[in-house]
C-alpha cells in the first residue's frame, strides 16, 4: 500500500511539473515517462514514507486540507499584523513555554508544529510525543503554563487532530 501512496504522491508532482506539454494538457510521452520514473522512485522509497501513509489517499482528507488553507492563511495574516505592532511599539515579553497537546501520531504533531511556526510570534522549538507536549518560543508570554494549545494556536490543534488521523 505504501508503494501506491508514494507512486501517486510523486506522479502528481510529475504532472504539475510537465503540465503544458500538449496545449495546456500533457503529451502521452510525458505521461508514460512519468509512470516509469514514479514507479522507480516509489520502489526506492516505499519503506521511507511510512506504512500508514496511504491514509492520505482518502479524498475526504484532501477536502479537509483545502478547507484548512484559508484558516491557516487568516491566522498568518492576523499574527503578522500583531508582530508588526510589536516591532513598532517594542512591547515584547519573550519566553519558552511548555504546551500540553492531545495528539496521537507523527503527522498530527508535524501539522500542528508547522502551523504554530508559520504563525509569527510563536516558534516550535521541540515536539515531545512521549510527554505529549510541544515547547514553543513565544514573543509575548501571557500565560506561563498554558493548560491547552488554545491560547497559542487557536483552533489549529483541532484541525491537526482531524487532518492527521
Amino acid at each position, binding site marked *: 500500500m505504501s508503494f501506491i501512496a*508514494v507512486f501517486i*504522491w*510523486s*506522479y502528481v*508532482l*510529475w504532472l504539475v*511539473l*510537465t503540465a503544458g*506539454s500538449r496545449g495546456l494538457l500533457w*503529451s502521452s*510521452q*510525458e505521461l508514460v*515517462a512519468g509512470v516509469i*520514473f*514514479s514507479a*522507480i*522512485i*516509489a520502489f*526506492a*522509497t516505499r519503506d*521511507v*514514507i*511510512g506504512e500508514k*501513509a496511504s491514509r492520505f489517499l482518502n479524498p475526504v482528507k484532501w477536502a479537509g486540507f483545502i478547507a484548512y488553507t484559508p484558516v491557516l492563511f487568516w491566522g498568518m495574516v492576523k499574527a503578522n499584523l500583531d508582530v508588526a505592532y510589536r516591532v513598532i511599539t517594542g512591547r515584547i515579553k519573550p519566553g519558552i513555554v511548555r504546551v500540553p497537546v492531545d495528539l496521537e501520531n*507523527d*503527522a498530527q*504533531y*508535524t501539522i500542528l*508544529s*508547522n502551523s504554530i511556526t508559520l504563525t509569527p510570534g510563536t516558534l*516550535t522549538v*521541540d*515536539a515531545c*510525543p512521549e510527554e505529549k507536549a510541544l515547547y514553543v518560543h513565544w514573543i509575548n508570554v501571557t500565560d506561563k503554563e498554558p493548560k491547552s494549545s488554545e491560547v497559542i494556536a487557536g483552533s489549529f490543534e483541532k484541525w491537526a487532530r482531524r487532518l492527521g488521523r
Partner: protein
Amino acid sequence: MKSDMGLIVKTTARATIPLIGIFGAYVVSHGHLTPGGGFQGGATIAGAGILFLIAFGFGEMRKRYDHHIYSALEGLGGLVFLGMAMLGLGVAFFYNTLWHSGPFFDGQPGTLLSAGYLPIMNLAVGLKVFAGLISAMVAIAAYRRWKE
C-alpha cells in the same frame, strides 16, 4: 549511532524525499529541453539520499545501503554513456546516429523523445552522479574514528 533529529524533521523528510527524487528525475529526463541535465539532476537526487542520511541517521542508512549495488550502478552509468557514444562509430565517435537515422529518439524537437542519444546520456550521467555522491557521503559518514 542514533539519529539526533526530532519527530518533525523525520516526518517532513518522509514526505519530501519522494518529491526531491521525482524532481531530480524530471531535471535529468528533460535535460535536452530545459535547464539542468545529468549532473544537476543526479546531484538533486543525491540530495534526497543525503536528507535521508541526516534525518534518520547513519544506522538506518547502513541497513539500506549496499555498496555493491551502488558501485555496479555507477559503473553501469559510465558504460551506457560510452555505449551511446559508440553507436555511430561507423561515421565517427560521438556521431548522433539516433537523431539522424535512428528508430526512436528522433521526434519533433521540443518533445521528450527527441535529440537522439542526449536523453539516454543524461540518464546515464544522472545515475552515475547519484550513485557516486551517495557512496561518497556514506563513506564519509562511516568514517567515525575522530583522532585528536
